[in-house]
């Protein structure tokens, strides 16, 4: 009876350890995907000619940064980043764009 229970316990333990490793791997894959998407969004924010698209891409960078902060156990910074970077900054930029020009090329023609 005893060895069976021992085997059972150890198998259960092994299973939980496997699950932990699996979860860690999954989290790492998620983080790598997020970082890649963030890099793409950041580069496109710099290269878009339509400034509204660029502002939205910059907001997307902030949003993914907030998710990454949360995954790295920094919820305080994640909250600040999500509310200021992804909401208020984008809104202020959009309001400023509405009052100025929307395309970057317009300046050369004038």
């Amino acid at each position, binding site marked *: 009876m005893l060895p069976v229970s021992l085997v059972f316990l150890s198998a259960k333990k092994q299973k939980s350890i496997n699950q932990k490793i699996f979860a860690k791997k999954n989290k790492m894959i998620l983080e790598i995907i997020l970082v890649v998407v963030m890099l793409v969004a950041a580069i496109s924010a710099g290269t878009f000619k339509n400034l509204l698209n660029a502002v939205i891409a910059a907001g997307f960078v902030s949003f993914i940064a907030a998710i990454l902060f949360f995954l790295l156990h920094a*919820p*305080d910074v994640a*909250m*600040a980043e999500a*509310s*200021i970077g992804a*909401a*208020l900054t984008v*809104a*202020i930029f959009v*309001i*400023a764009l509405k009052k100025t020009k929307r395309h970057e090329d317009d300046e050369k023609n004038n």
Partner: protein
Amino acid sequence: MRRIISLVLLTIVLIGVAFCLDAIPFGISQSQVRQYYLDNGVKETGATNIVTSVVVNYRGFDTLGEVTVLFLAAIGLSAVLHRAEKRQRKEGRRSSLILYTGCRFLFPLILLFGTYIFIHGHLTPGGGFQGGAIIASGFLLTILGCWKWGGINKNAFKITESISGLVFVVVGLLGLLYSGYFLANYLPKGLPNNLFSAGIIPIIYVAIGFKVGTELTGVLDDLTKEP
């Protein structure tokens, strides 16, 4: 020739930077202050959120500087955008009933959430800055969605902002009076994990929450008004 010289100089600079970066051990904490905060933070300040105890108690003076920077930015923006004649928001297209009702339904909930975050700043993640920004985003929702909403009462917002800034400074000066240094935690700490604990931290965070919320809302209001 100049290109070759600049390339050589650039290579020398790059090698120097690479050596400097190589000398810094990455991923290893150099200071022991982090472990000190983790060990003694709850005991010394009474706040279970260590980040809050660092931001408001151990480094409270820096936070006062941050609040001042934000205040100066808001003042500068309103000074640039200020016009002598009274400005009105242009009445745009009427938003649909669903949008209008949804905004009116969500706005008090967002305010409540922001208030919760800055009142519970010493217990759960978040604090004055985060709560204030959430409140400002609630006002942004009304600016975008509620066409009937005519604008904030600017004077009331200015008064709230000034009073909350004054509360921060006066609480700090009382610390100078009672305990000998600015922003000392002179109130009783109470039991950790209670709402009324951690001495002056909740008072300061509520003041910061009001201040940041009113300031960012004032910025948005200044920007969206048509000249």
